[in-house]
């Protein structure tokens, strides 16, 4: 009798979703097996990396993270173009930091104007990441949905508290939405059901499980994402068969550890430390099932691209 390697019995498939439009549209998802289990199924699209751009100059970034973007951090358009032209970004994730009512509280028209300029300047898919303030996100994302009609933007966070208002605008102007829930599989499923009830088509939906970085509870994020994939792939749970996006760089680069100077607490070179924390966090999440990783440092991105290439090499 020959030995047969046991195989997972898959009964479902992650939906393949197209982000953006035109030549630079990016397909994500489509897996028929657990992440990188190429011996059991297919992973037609490798995990994609979206590069993080802020809509206002960052004030608290570590030196290591600022260095690659010297001269462009006060101009989101130049910043986004640099990511695409110099660092080969396939997707841009524009963080709408300026609209935070507890921060700069930039007005709707001004914020939407900046977003429109970025959307016009780059042809790769554009993710707009709001501030998790239901009212402000609703105002800005609704305005920009109309202003950028036809561009298939990717709009996030769409949460239970604002899903009707933001979801309806995205639906009306045909943008992709990302359902965002606080790291809980039941809530994730519930919000996807609600968005489905609202009429958001399955090919315009991505999930944000809310993640953290290494040292800040990433194990729990891993478990929740793993459960999402188990439900989607082995339990035919249609409401969890959506690609997953992880906004990892913003979490990693705000930790205390990346801000400590060289050799503080015997933690070695600050630049290397930050890059490795970002890369390792992103890798963990890729292994858990991330289809899109939002990342910041070009060297961390390079490491992840190499790892993904090796893991998916035939």
């Amino acid at each position, binding site marked *: 009798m020959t030995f047969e390697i046991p195989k997972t019995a898959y009964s479902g498939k992650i939906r393949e979703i197209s982000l953006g439009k035109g030549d630079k549209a990016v397909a994500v998802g489509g897996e028929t097996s657990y992440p990188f289990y190429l011996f059991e199924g297919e992973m037609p699209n490798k995990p994609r990396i979206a590069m993080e751009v802020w809509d206002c100059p960052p004030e608290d970034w570590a030196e290591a993270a600022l260095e690659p973007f010297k001269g462009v951090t006060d101009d989101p358009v130049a910043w986004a173009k640099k990511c695409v032209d110099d660092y080969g970004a396939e997707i841009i994730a524009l963080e709408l930091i300026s609209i935070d009512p507890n921060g700069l509280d930039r007005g709707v028209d001004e914020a939407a104007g900046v977003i429109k300029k970025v959307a016009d300047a780059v042809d790769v898919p554009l993710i707009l990441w709001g501030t998790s303030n239901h009212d402000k996100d609703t105002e800005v994302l609704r305005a920009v949905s109309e202003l950028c009609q036809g561009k298939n933007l990717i709009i996030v966070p769409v949460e239970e508290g604002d899903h009707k208002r933001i979801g309806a605008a995205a639906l009306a102007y045909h943008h992709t939405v990302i359902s965002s829930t606080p790291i809980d599989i*039941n809530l994730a*499923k*519930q919000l996807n*059901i609600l968005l489905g*009830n609202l009429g958001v088509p399955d090919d315009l939906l991505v999930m944000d499980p809310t993640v953290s970085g290494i040292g800040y509870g990433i194990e729990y994020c891993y478990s929740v994402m793993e459960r999402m994939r188990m439900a989607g792939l082995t339990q035919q*749970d249609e*409401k969890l068969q959506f690609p997953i996006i992880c906004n990892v760089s913003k979490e990693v680069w705000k930790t205390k550890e990346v801000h400590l100077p060289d050799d503080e607490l015997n933690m070695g070179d600050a630049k290397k430390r930050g890059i490795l924390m970002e890369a390792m966090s992103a890798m963990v999440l890729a292994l858990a099932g991330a289809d899109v990783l939002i990342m910041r440092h070009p060297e961390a991105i390079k490491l992840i691209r190499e790892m993904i290439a090796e893991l998916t090499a035939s």
Partner: protein
Amino acid sequence: MILIAESINVMSKTLGPAMKERDPKPIQEMAKTQVEAGADYLDINIGPARRQGDEMMEWVVNTVQEVTDLPLSLDTTNPVAMEAGLKVCRSKALINSISLQPDRLEAELPLVSKYNADMIGLLWGIDGMPRDANERCMHTVDIVYRANEAGIPNENIWIDPIASPVSVEINQVKACPEFMSMLGDIAPGCKSTVGLSNISNGAPAHLRGHLNRTYMIMLMRYGLYSAIVDVFDTELVSIAKGQMPEIIDLVYRVMDGERPDLSSLSKKEVEYVKTVRVLTGDSLYSDSWLEI
């Protein structure tokens, strides 16, 4: 099945103040309506009752006994209050509950023998919540051993495996039926109970009954002796009294893996099928589980 009615509780917005102000009316009303609804026991939960808990418990027990002869289940973490209640109980009381916490064991096991009461053996370990069915078995052995040592026979012990919310951790939901299937072998003669409403904690209020009723049937299959319940759920009471055998049979069949054609079922049957699938972990819980 024995139904322990849960609603005389210090957490209630009306009964809590009534207990503190010694106003018998709302408490007696609640007692009477629960009796009419089909309760077999009335639970009296006065909470931690740190200050003058003994006076409060004695007063509430007497107040309730003025309007009913049903046996009472006394629920407080204050052993002095517990004893004050036991002293005045006219029927065999149920102590709710004794866990493996050393101070609870030492303070309350002697009361079970002294007042010839029954006790709920809550499978809460020294490290808190048991992680799975096996730890529940371990805790059962420990608690029964300690109780036997104190002269309490198995027949007086009602084991509570601790139900936890379906929206929190499905493996814990699956662990209780699994444990119940082993209880008879581990602790012959022991009875069982469960704080049923906890299964639906966090679910939308108008849908909680679906989870409570279905989970009760799932546990009944393995010999659940009693449950602490919302006795105003009339459908739940009917099930417990054996008046809905078709539904019980349907739940059993779905537990066994049968996938009935939903289009051939009534709305109520479909809801039971969907709820069993959620509680067995075949389908992931979400607040809209009945709609998909």
